[in-house]
């Protein structure tokens, strides 16, 4: 094995580990900020880790009618999300495994995880699982093309589909100041909210099965299986936010592997993700959840914006 490949694998392991470690903190931070906006104290910042530890210690309970699909679901979902963390640039303007593929591989990987979870939800035959899966797919069918078009708009400005090369180009060129950037950002921000199950689309804290989307899909899971799903969802949220800040605001990202730029990049990344998390919290706190039939309208707005972002670059 060549030295480059060794370096890439080492970087991928480090990056995946770092994202896995940081993700529960992001979830809890958003919960905490939301609680403070409602004049509540909120959970301690480490609550996400306590919850995961608690779930991982519990015994596994599975429905008698379920098959291997049900067991495989959370594992595939977790694996795809971990794979996705290695396909995006986080601290360095290069993705560890960028040689394997770019935007299409990232979107496809995330889609595979969603497919695995939806089939697993159908497997038990529980009506809530089926309902959740059907709803999740309805939204995904609109959100996925919007995600692709929004990312293509950025790809067009740099002339490459590879996320690592793309961010490097964006840093070298400087900001392009094209209306397409803002349109794509607005479109992708709506997608992030829809894909991570945040309020105008889905309520992550709901206990009412009839209004659930993502929660309804994983209603049957318990113990370590549930821990995998929750953890993967948190990492997915972090992946989306990281992608957004690094594509549209690649300020402070490290161009070399020296300690000082890396430290600056770490601070810049944490700060930018935090700012975006504040934006997500504000949207969540100031909006009411949409009726399910209104959700496709919201997602179609983002599809429109993403399409326009792409079209405007040719006009």
């Amino acid at each position: 094995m060549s030295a480059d490949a060794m370096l890439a694998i080492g970087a991928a392991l480090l990056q995946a580990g770092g994202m896995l470690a940081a993700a529960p903190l992001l979830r809890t931070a958003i919960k905490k900020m939301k609680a403070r906006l409602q004049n509540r104290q909120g959970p301690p910042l480490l609550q996400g880790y306590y919850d995961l530890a608690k779930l991982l210690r519990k015994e596994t309970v599975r429905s008698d009618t379920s098959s291997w699909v049900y067991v495989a679901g959370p594992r595939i979902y977790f694996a795809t999300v971990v794979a996705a963390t290695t396909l995006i640039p986080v601290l360095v303007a290069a993705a560890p495994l960028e040689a394997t593929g770019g935007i299409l591989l990232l979107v496809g990987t995330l889609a595979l995880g969603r497919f695995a979870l939806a089939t697993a939800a159908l497997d038990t035959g529980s009506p809530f699982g089926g309902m959740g899966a059907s709803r999740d797919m309805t939204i995904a069918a609109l959100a996925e093309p919007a995600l692709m078009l929004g990312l293509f708009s950025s790809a067009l400005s740099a002339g490459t589909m590879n996320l690592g090369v793309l961010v490097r180009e964006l840093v070298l060129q400087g900001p392009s100041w094209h209306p397409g950037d803002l349109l794509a950002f607005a479109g992708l921000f709506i997608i992030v909210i829809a894909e991570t199950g945040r309020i105008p689309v889905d309520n992550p804290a709901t206990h009412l099965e009839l209004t659930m989307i993502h929660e309804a899909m994983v209603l049957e899971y318990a113990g370590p299986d549930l821990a995998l799903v929750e953890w993967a969802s948190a990492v997915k949220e972090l992946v989306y936010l990281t992608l957004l800040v690094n594509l549209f605001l690649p300020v402070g990202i490290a161009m070399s592997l020296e300690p000082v730029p890396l430290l600056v990049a770490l601070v810049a990344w944490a700060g930018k993700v935090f700012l975006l998390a504040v934006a997500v919290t504000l949207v969540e706190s100031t909006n009411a959840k949409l009726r399910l039939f209104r959700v496709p309208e919201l997602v179609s707005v983002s599809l429109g914006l993403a399409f326009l972002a792409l079209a405007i670059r040719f006009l």
Partner: protein
Amino acid sequence: MTANVLILCAAGMLVTAYLMVGQKALFTTIRLFGLQSLLLALVAATIAIAESRHELFITAALTVTLKAILIPWFLMRTVDRIGIHREIEPFLNVPASLLICLGLTVVGYRVSTGFQEGAREVGHHLIGVALSLLLIGLFMMVTRKKAITQILALLTVENAVFLVAVGVTSGMPLIVELGISFDVILAVLLLGVLVQRIVGRFESMDISRLSKLKG
């Protein structure tokens, strides 16, 4: 730098217009219009600083106080008083409206290349966005049923005209601008009263019911 801020603000105005088309809650639509006017004021202020045209500061101040604060406040009060908070099903559903608006934006951008100013980088985007806003505003006026949304559509068209006047031409005389500002506020006041009368008569803001007034 100036050009970048101008393009960013113009793009922001286009985004707010799209969000307005995709919205049915009246309060959010009114707030989006306020944001759009704020961005317009930012365009005027940026040009005022860059080209040291001080009269544009007055334009910016007028835009902020009238269109970003006063008119949204007045419209929200009207909505609160009549107690109707949502747009009913428009003549065209949201995805179809968005598709048409996409087409309108493409038309606006293509047409902007025909202007002499539209050949330059900034002028191209400013005229393109302004024409798109104009067409989207007209389109919203035709397809929405609520009187409040129609007022907002009219104001969007007004914003579009203002964007071209401020951003591309050397600007209107101050007296004309003042006149237009008072025209707009008078129009909104009158339309607000008209809305309340329509609601009082039909217990709905649906202007398609006005055709029942025919004998």
